[in-house]
């Protein structure tokens, strides 16, 4: 059987991480095709609801990337994203989403190479983990449920 190709949704902040992704492109740093980018103004703009929505819509992992703390174009939006990430992780775990499937990364505009690395290693990681099946509790693989698009 062909190997599993995870779908990863990446929310990139317009000022640092999106630019980093562009830089990676300009430098032709080869990346797995699994990551699909959604551009947002600021990592602080990413509502945890977006993350749930992504999983509910069939994503196998979600990446949020923003400016390094202190460099936020909006002074402290990324700090808010940081604060949310921990509680969101807890909620996701309760709902049976493994830790590895959600990541918050700081990637500065100059860090094109780092962006490529994050993309590739995350893809590999999720490949190993297998597809995400929205279910409940600790053993999602037992569930036959299919997820609804709308809550």
């Amino acid at each position, binding site marked *: 059987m062909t190997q599993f190709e995870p779908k990863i949704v990446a929310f990139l902040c317009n000022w640092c991480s999106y630019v980093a992704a562009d830089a990676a492109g300009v430098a032709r740093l080869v990346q797995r095709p699994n990551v699909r980018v959604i551009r947002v103004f600021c990592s602080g703009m990413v*509502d*945890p*609801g977006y*993350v*749930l*929505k992504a*999983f*509910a819509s069939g994503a196998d992992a979600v990446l949020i990337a923003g400016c390094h703390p202190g460099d936020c174009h909006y002074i402290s939006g990324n*700090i*808010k994203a*940081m*604060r*949310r990430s*921990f*509680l*969101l*992780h*807890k*909620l996701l775990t*309760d*709902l*049976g*989403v493994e830790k590895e499937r959600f990541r918050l990364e700081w990637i500065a505009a100059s860090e094109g190479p780092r962006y490529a690395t994050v993309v590739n290693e995350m893809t590999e990681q999720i490949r190993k983990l297998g597809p995400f099946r*929205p*279910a*409940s*509790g*600790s*053993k*999602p693989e*037992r*569930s*036959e*449920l299919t*997820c*609804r698009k709308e*809550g």
Partner: protein
Amino acid sequence: MPKRRVAIYSATGCSACDNSILGLHYQVGAFTGWAEIVFWPYLRGDSWQVLEDDRQIDVCFFCGSIATEEDRHAALRLRAAARVLVACGACAAFGGLPGLVNLIPADPTEMSTSSQDTWPPLPRAKSRVSGLPGIVPVDYFVPGCPPTQPLLWACFQALVSGGESQIRASFSAARLPEAISTAVAAGVLPPHGSTFAGEKAVCASCCRAKEEKKFSRLYRGHELDPDAGRCLLEQGLICQGLATREGCGGLCTAVGVPCRGCFGKAEAVYDAGAKMVSAISSTFDAAEAGQASEMAARFVDLAGTFYRYTLAEQCALLAGASEERNDAIHGS
């Protein structure tokens, strides 16, 4: 004009909804004036035979969650019989507390086998609980655990009185969405699918003063005796009034009990859990990742907390647990 034929049924639940209906006190007179109650097992022990003659039921108030085969059959049957089907109470509307069972991994088609070896035979429990909309299409919702009389009363006026109500400008109408209250006032049916509750969140009707949202430490209910008059969340208690549909009038928070979300998520919210996470953690009093994770570490059982009544129907990830939803049959 003939009386409306009304059925009231309670599936798996605590029957608080039935009692809440009984709690209408003096309005009961008016109610029975408009309604001919043809089927109310809880109150009168009616058997299903009552529904044998295939006369239509005008309005059916369905309480309780769908946790057993019987519940499912009842839902299908009443859907078929009733012109207007109302999910009454948190269980029917969102799956309610029984819905939390869905957190335990299990095969949805699996049934508990306990029924064989016990007497009297217990109903065969489904391993995945759902609310009424998980099984059949629902026309109206009255949330709450249990629903409050003002809202029930508004619902009855809108659906049962058939425009005969002399007291349309009901005191409860104020807290309803404009569409519903105008419908109630005009004695016409509110828009299909409406929820008989407010459209803002509980904070809007909570009497407590909100000063500054800065979350510095979580307190569990038993750890703190909250100051009177100050926002409970600002004192470190998890209060879901933030993202929970209003309509109750902030009954719990008024007496110092944090909102537990029995009215379901507020109008425009996609997922209540995500919003609660976002609203609380955004205001964490933490500049460093270390502090933030320490603060987050004090929270326990987020799913059980934020989806206490709504897991089965409103949790973006776990909702829709029912195996086959039957859209074939539809109320007129």
